[in-house]
């Protein structure tokens, strides 16, 4: 069975077959046996290429949080990308003028109205989280075509706040 995860901008693919506690994995064309020694959630102990590893694994929607020896990884099941635009894609979508929340929090203020002409870098929305205030600014010169949030509202990270359409 094939699993595809994204980690940061990287796509990671792994093929895995199971027979009882024994698994056969394939990463980048290399096959290796994996044997589960114990699984007391969230702790998984297994042997791989003759060495024993312990990891802690928790699921959170499409995310898999995995801790291995001091390093924490968030692997996202690749099929999650169809749900909501890939996070980096949303952030890089500057050409579209889409304005996203860089952090989760509450909307403390909406500084512009739909139809306003704004310049690049002009503050549009003030977010607050954990007592910290953050201005979200216009990604380009243009007209505010959409404002999708109101003061007092809670937003998630990467949630679309509005859009600034280019004049050209």
């Amino acid at each position, binding site marked *: 069975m094939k*699993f595809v*995860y994204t980690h*940061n*901008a990287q796509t*990671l693919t*792994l093929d*895995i077959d*199971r*027979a*009882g*506690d024994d*698994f056969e*994995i394939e*990463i980048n064309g290399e096959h290796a046996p994996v044997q*589960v020694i*114990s*699984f*007391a*959630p*969230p*702790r*998984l102990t*297994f042997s*791989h290429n003759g060495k024993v*590893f312990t*990891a*802690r*694994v*928790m*699921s*959170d929607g499409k995310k*898999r*949080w*995995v*801790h*291995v*020896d*001091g*390093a*924490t*990884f*968030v692997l996202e099941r690749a099929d999650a990308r169809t749900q909501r635009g890939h996070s*980096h894609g949303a*952030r890089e979508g500057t050409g579209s003028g889409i304005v996203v929340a*860089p*952090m*989760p*929090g*509450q909307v*403390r203020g909406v500084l512009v109205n739909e139809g306003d002409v704004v310049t690049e870098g002009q503050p549009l929305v*003030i977010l*607050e*989280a*954990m*007592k*910290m*205030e953050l*201005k979200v600014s216009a990604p380009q010169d243009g007209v505010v075509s959409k404002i999708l949030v109101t003061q007092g509202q*809670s937003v998630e*990270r990467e949630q679309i706040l509005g859009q600034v359409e280019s004049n050209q």
Partner: protein
Amino acid sequence: MVKKILIANRGEIAVRIMRACREMNIATVAVYSDADRAALHVRVADEAIHIGASSPRESYLNIEKIIDAAKKTNADAVHPGYGFLAENAEFAQAVNDAGLVFIGPSPFSIRAMGDKAEARTRMIANGVPVVPGFQDADDDASLENAARKIGFPVLIKAAAGGGGKAMRVVNDAHDFLEALASARREALNAFGDARVILEKYVANARHIEFQILADKFGNTIHLFERECSIQRRHQKIIEETPSPLLDEDLRERMGNAAVAAARAMNYENAGTIEFIVDPDTREFYFLEMNTRLQVEHPITELTTGLDIVQWQIRIANGEELAVNSEPLPVSGNQSSVISLQSPVSAHQRGHAIECRIYAEDPSNNFLPSTGRVLDLELPNMPSVRADSGIATGDEASAFYDPLLVKLIAHAETRDAAIAKMQNALREFVLLGVTTNVEFLQAVLEHETFREGKATTRFVEEIGDWRLETGDWRLETGDWRLETRDWRLETALIAAAVVELLEKKVSDVPVSSANDPYSPWRTNGAFRVGGGAASG
């Protein structure tokens, strides 16, 4: 004698104070907001009272509701912790007026020293050196004018502030008014007071503070310094004691200045005098006094062996400071004994470091992250302390401070303490909320930190953002653990294996269910979900 204390706070500090109370056989009352109705501090307390909505202004900053909660539960004292109302003189006064003991200094001291403007004025009057600045008026025009006179970069600080909240560095006159408005809004929200002061922004400074303890009998001592130069957004992330910068002479001069400043106020209970030190000239300047318990107090506790929170309670109870016990055997030159011509002295042994684990994403400009803590494991090793405000299943909410856990390590030398902290961070597990743990590891690895030369600009100087991949890099290379690759591969395998192990039989396609080799047909030794998660 105090028998029941209401803790007017939340998170790790509320839990830490409750622990001190338990050890002193004092009952505890928690207060909580909507968001915190099942929070760890509520679960640890003997009693808990709901005080309002999640927004701090409607709960943890609501004086009336907190006093009501104290009366309702027959508490005889209130401990404010840090943040929220800890440096609010009106609150301390209200506690006293209700016939309760406020565990902290007098409302007079809080007003005088907690107010940055008045504190500066008083320090100047007492001959304590202060940073060039402006505190004489609060209208926008006067401030803008003063900023031009002081010269940019200028630091805007909340007059009622502390803890790095509502601070703005302004590099250019054009940005001043906008930064001022923003700082005022944040100050109003965090402290209920929009007044600000200005200070010349001293680049490349060291932030070094002295812990003060003072009783009702005029005994005022310091418990040595804490070096707090590793900061981001003016908030400390790593603290240590002793400071690698100070020699005995500078330590003595700064310590004496700190004690003199507190004595000049007839200061009582625990407090901290913050200085900035120019590492080139070795000049020091008074920055502010925090008239409360400090987040980083544990490093002082580990090196002095004193329980500062218990001493706060004992002082409030009218006990005399009597920490002039025989010094413990010392090793190396890191230890010293302080005697300040009072019957009281304290000594320090070895070196301690604290790392603050924040709910924030270093690869996203250290912006806050939120979420549910899916898994938490605290390190368990000799001389490591973990002060946590959360447990598995708890929520890191956007309403409150991002501080989740403090790890504190103590060892004989600085190098040994760093090694111990690295080990502790490696064993620390927190899944479900993005934290700064690997960034802390990177700082501990960094040459400048290891040489003890980091200034308050360290975090902004060491790296540049690589937004395209969301990675943070230090000038010395990848900040992530050197051998992260095998860990990523192990994580990938573990994730996939767990997907299969946790797959419900109903999820397995029919073709697979008919497969004679399918694990789902056999009833092997392995049981999905068998066994409890263990620590």
